[in-house]
């Protein structure tokens, strides 16, 4: 219980205090890192308690059950919170070592981590919206970070599109309250079965559109490439490795957790949208030449896999969706962080990320692809297996096109008008490279010893379909 409260309060306080300080000073940056480390520590402590004995719940403000806002940590939430916190921490350390360029950057990153932790650990639908906005607002500001004036336009588009998504989410929350009379997730799930089917389907579709926008799925993806293409690598890593988890988690929690009947009804639609997302993202990624844009389109494709797994459903499909979301977040963060660096071992770290993205055996991404294939076999659908194979082959092509582009060309000509964006030819500092290498080792380690991750994702998925938590 203390761990749950600490995981939220510590970064919150640190974030607010740091807003007053000048983030460009090293000390402030390291204080932010310490805040995030505390958050990660509390989450690990929480995970150690939650994973063996099931969920932990707090009713805030000392209210009685059913009145106060409920914070709940279960396996699914803890897994996603840990993952996001880890990615954000890696990105922040990377940026602090490289040199922070704006006053507010460290504080905003810490507040974003707070919002993410909160929304993964809340048991209340409206509270989810509040934390979600906290994380998103920090992200809107972070997109404009980096002094590139072209980023402003991207930040504006990002903010407007995602705000429309957020307000749609709010409307869906209001509708959920109207038809079920409660905001508590477990109660909503229990009462949703008796709701009139028309209303339930409308609510489900609105939630889907809201999270689809966030995740950047195929018909809602148009904002994504412009945003990723111009941001600093650390921000791109945060956006694709931590913020995109909101979409995946939201689809899992609200789709499979709260509206399982509607999810089943719409499974064909989900699989079709997911498949088109996979193909569209992969094809455009192959055709792009700017590395950041290539990775952005690849993110659209990777989101499609999560949706396909979710559409197939069942214990195997859901576990595959969780696993794929985790591995994709890790490999994307690794690719964005190491792609901007130069020097010994960086290319190796990038190669591990590229292998993971393409789903080659020594890296952890292989597990994700393997579980997806299992899902396809379980479903008995040849079309699905062919799709997964084509998507995998294409991701192999663009991942190594990217590798060749980034590391085999020697000195690169500065890209764009400002020489700032060009990658320096001299090697980056040892400490910055160490961050990428540690992430790469993690991805490699998870691939070589996959057992913990597999059981973790199975546990997380078990929360959703009501299976027994070990």
């Amino acid at each position, binding site marked *: 219980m203390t761990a749950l409260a600490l995981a939220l309060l510590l970064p919150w306080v640190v974030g607010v205090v740091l807003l007053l300080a000048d983030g460009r000073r090293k000390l402030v940056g390291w204080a932010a890192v310490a805040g995030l480390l505390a958050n990660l520590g509390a989450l690990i402590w929480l995970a150690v308690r939650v994973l063996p004995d099931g969920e932990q719940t707090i009713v805030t403000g000392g209210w009685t059950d059913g009145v106060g806002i409920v914070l709940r940590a279960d396996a699914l939430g803890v897994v996603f919170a840990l993952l996001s916190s880890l990615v954000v921490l890696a990105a922040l350390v990377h940026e602090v070592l490289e040199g922070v360029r704006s006053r507010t950057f460290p504080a905003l990153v810490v507040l974003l981590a707070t919002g993410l932790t909160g929304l993964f650990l809340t048991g209340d639908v*409206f509270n989810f919206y*509040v934390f979600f906005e906290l994380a998103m*607002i920090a992200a809107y500001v972070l997109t404009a970070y980096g002094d590139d004036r072209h980023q402003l*336009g991207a930040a*504006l588009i990002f903010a407007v599109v995602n705000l429309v998504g957020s307000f749609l989410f709010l*409307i869906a929350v209001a509708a959920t309250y109207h038809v079920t009379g409660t905001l508590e997730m477990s109660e909503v799930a229990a009462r949703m079965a008796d709701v009139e089917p028309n209303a339930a389907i409308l609510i489900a579709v609105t939630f889907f559109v809201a999270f689809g926008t966030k995740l950047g799925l195929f018909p809602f993806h148009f904002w994504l490439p412009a945003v990723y293409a111009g941001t600093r690598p650390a921000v791109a890593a945060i956006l694709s490795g931590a913020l995109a988890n909101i979409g995946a988690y939201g689809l899992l929690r609200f789709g499979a957790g709260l509206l399982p009947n509607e999810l089943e009804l719409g499974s064909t639609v989900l699989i079709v949208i997911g498949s088109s997302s996979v193909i569209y993202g992969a094809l455009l990624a192959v055709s792009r*030449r700017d590395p950041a844009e290539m990775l952005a389109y690849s993110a659209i494709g990777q989101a499609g896999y999560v949706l396909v797994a979710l559409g197939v459903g069942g214990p195997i499909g859901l576990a595959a969706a969780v696993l794929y979301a985790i591995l994709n977040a890790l490999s994307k963060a690794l690719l964005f962080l190491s792609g901007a660096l130069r020097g010994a071992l960086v290319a190796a770290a990038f190669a591990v990320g590229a292998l993971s993205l393409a789903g080659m055996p020594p890296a952890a991404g292989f597990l994700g692809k393997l579980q997806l294939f299992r899902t396809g076999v379980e479903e008995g659908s040849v079309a699905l297996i062919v799709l997964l194979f084509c998507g995998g082959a294409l991701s192999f092509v663009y991942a190594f096109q990217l590798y060749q582009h980034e590391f085999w060309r020697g000195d690169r000509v500065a890209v*764009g008008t400002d020489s700032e964006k060009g990658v320096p030819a001299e090697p980056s500092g040892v400490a910055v490279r160490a961050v990428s290498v540690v992430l790469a080792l993690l991805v490699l380690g998870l691939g070589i010893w996959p057992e913990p991750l597999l059981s973790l994702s199975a546990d997380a998925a078990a929360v959703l379909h009501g299976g027994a938590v070990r």
Partner: protein
Amino acid sequence: MTLIFAIAAGVVFGAGAFLVLTNDLVRVVAGMVLISQSAVLVVISSGLTRGDAPILPTGDKTPSDPLVQAMALTAIVIGLAVTALLLAIVARVRATLRSLEVRELARDEAEHTAELEQSLDTMHEQLASDEAKEEQ
């Protein structure tokens, strides 16, 4: 009553969406404000009971649902923060581009992309000529 709320929320949302699609950045922000207000309308109309002020229920009439009022207040506050943020971004766009038009923003971005492509092309050409020289 629900129908009136539904129509009002729909009209406000539609007006907001229309403004978001216009060329003027300030109108885009105004459109976002309208969309956020339509969400607040939906929240307040989703209350389960309607009646007396819920602060001190007298027992004669059913009190209105206090929960949706709390939610609407929170939503209004978040909407305010978001509006301030959007206006700040628009102000910075105005300071750097000296324009408040979406078209200008798009043109600037298109130019930037073209420059990027061009510099990549020159890079490829240079590499090709370097290779050719080496072969000779």
